């Protein structure tokens, strides 16, 4: 059983560290270059949000299995200001910062499972998973 990889994210360089860790885990799991890049990109998006909106947080990477298939699970947790309207935040082009507004909906498109739990002033937890197809 693989131990979890935990990355503390507080500044720019940690975004790179987190996505590299994601790529490495995806690679160890046997994911193709394409899947590895999708995982890394999704991590980059949520890690950046963490730095920009919450200041700091933690990203936990783990291997999960479900019904014979294996996958990578990423949990990005912070104690920041939270997302007031998750539905709005999940809409392309919506941004409360100075960005494209593609971070959250983009990450969701890249991953298979995607869950956002957020309470205004109560932090945000994003859980996302990418599965390895059974036949690979």
């Amino acid at each position, binding site marked *: 059983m693989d131990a979890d990889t935990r990355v503390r994210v507080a500044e*720019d*360089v940690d*975004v*790179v560290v987190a*996505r590299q860790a994601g*790529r490495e885990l995806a690679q160890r799991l046997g994911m*193709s*270059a*394409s899947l*590895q*890049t*999708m995982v*890394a*990109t999704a991590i*980059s*998006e949520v890690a*950046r949000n963490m730095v920009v909106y919450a200041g700091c947080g933690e990203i936990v990477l783990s291997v999960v299995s479900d019904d014979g298939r294996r996958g990578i699970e990423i949990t990005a947790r912070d104690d920041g200001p939270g997302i007031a309207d998750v539905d709005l935040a999940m809409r*392309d082009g919506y941004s409360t910062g100075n*960005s*494209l507004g*593609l*971070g959250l*909906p*983009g990450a969701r*498109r*890249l991953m298979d499972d995607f869950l956002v739990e957020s309470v205004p002033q109560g932090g945000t937890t994003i859980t996302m998973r990418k599965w390895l197809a059974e036949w690979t």
Partner: protein
Amino acid sequence: MPVPILHQGRLLIASVPPTATDRDLRELQDDLAEQVGRIGARGVIIDVSVLDILDSFATRVLETVGQVSHLRGATTVIVGIQPDVALAMVQLGVTLDAVATALDLEGGLALLHEQRSAASR
């Protein structure tokens, strides 16, 4: 770590390393904007062939470089987007409208050359 920018005549060439952080990219954006003006650049080539991801932030930087350069008379070409990076960009939903693209440096140079030839006819 600042991304080095090479000058070749009226051409600027920058190669982005995989370790580049958001801050490095922002600085590159500013450096290119300044240098386009300073040397009267006609073309900007940004080589991303060793980048293993292009996320929404990086894409936005490239787009901004393209728009700013265009306003100052230069064409920007992004070269070397890797296949899995391109796929992830499509899934992410980002587009590159203000810049041209080419497979590699040679392709980028050819594109800029063609453009200049066409303009002078």
